[in-house]
């Protein structure tokens, strides 16, 4: 379900968050699906339970998953992923550095928008 890239400099808990969201967006995981407990996922991915717990807390805060006491952890039944302003600002910053790179290679506005459109549809 989740593949780690241990060589990546991106923190492991961020990788978990990202991949869990990707699975939801791709509909590989649907609302109400049970996901592994913190300890199970830690054992499977060979990482500490604390790292998984950190990722799950963030996913829960963002409304992607929910924990039902005594039952387990699930993809949220009513998925409503909140738009977080500070997050959007951070993403904007990341996108602009990438676009700058395209621009330097000679991409015009139309080509860039086309590229973004394609990526959007792929996800």
């Amino acid at each position: 379900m989740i593949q780690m890239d241990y060589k990546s400099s991106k923190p492991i808990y961020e990788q978990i968050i990202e991949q869990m969201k990707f699975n939801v967006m791709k509909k590989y995981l649907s609302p109400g699906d049970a996901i592994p407990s913190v300890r199970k996922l830690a054992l499977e991915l060979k990482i500490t339970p604390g790292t998984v717990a950190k990722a799950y807390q963030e996913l829960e805060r963002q409304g992607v998953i929910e924990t039902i006491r005594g039952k387990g952890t699930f993809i949220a039944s009513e998925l409503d992923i909140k738009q977080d302003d500070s997050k959007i600002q951070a993403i904007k910053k990341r996108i602009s550095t990438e676009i700058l790179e395209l621009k330097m290679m000679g991409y015009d506005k139309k080509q860039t928008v086309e590229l973004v459109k394609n990526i959007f549809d792929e996800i």
Partner: protein
Amino acid sequence: MLEIKDLRKGYNKTKVIKGVNLSVEKGEIHGLIGENSAGKTTLIKCAVGVYKPDEGEVLYDGKPIYDNPTIKEKVGYVADSNEYIGLYTVSRMVDMYEDFYPKFSREKFNEYNEIFKLDVKKRIHSLSKGQKMRLAFMLETSKQPEYLILDEPTSGLDPIAKAKFYELLINEVEHNDIGVLISSHNLEGLERICDSVTMLHKGVVDRQMSMDDMKCELTQLNVVFEGGANKKVYDMPEILRITNVGSIYTLIVRDYDEDFASKLKANGASLVEPLDISLEELFVVLGENNLRNNEE
């Protein structure tokens, strides 16, 4: 909660445990690591009430365990080597446990034995080391304890049994909210299950913290110094170990942050890439470092 308070224990004149504090909450897995003869087994034997502490106390939910059968019923203990009555068959041993422990569940034992597959008609003296370990784990968890104290429980287990053991253990913790104290040299396994960890060194606590904080203490870095690293780099006090293949250097550093990356770059590093360090490697590097500091 299991609380070990200022525990001291020695044999004759040799002091083995020299003032250890440790606590384990229910639902928590606490790892106990340390080199050979650091005092792990002595500490554990005090923790389960086999040994009487010379000083200090061992409390479970506020009550001492030594000479206290009601508390001992609530505590499962898998020793580093488990000798039962050799002439008994496995099933007779199960009968005995059932007589001794009111909460013992035969269903649970049978359920576990579906996985660990011991022949219950076999006599215990004919079991191998790994099979005795399986038996001990099954008997002690079938007592339905509130706490499990495990001394090197994976030694002698084959890789398949080891994987099953970890899976069953985390199920116990998650479903029954038991507290676990586990000592092991299998650090790769501990890393994946422990919430917190105590590093014992010559009878005292060297480090005690959450597993994540422990792992943050040291960082492994891949660094490229084109044309080689200069002497200043070798002298940096933050670096505990430095090795290289050509111009690619592998550094192990204490408390890594962005500032340190800049410092390396100022000294000619063209690439600084932090990598996760395994508990095993961390333990080895800290051990080497202790040794070096002792010599100085």
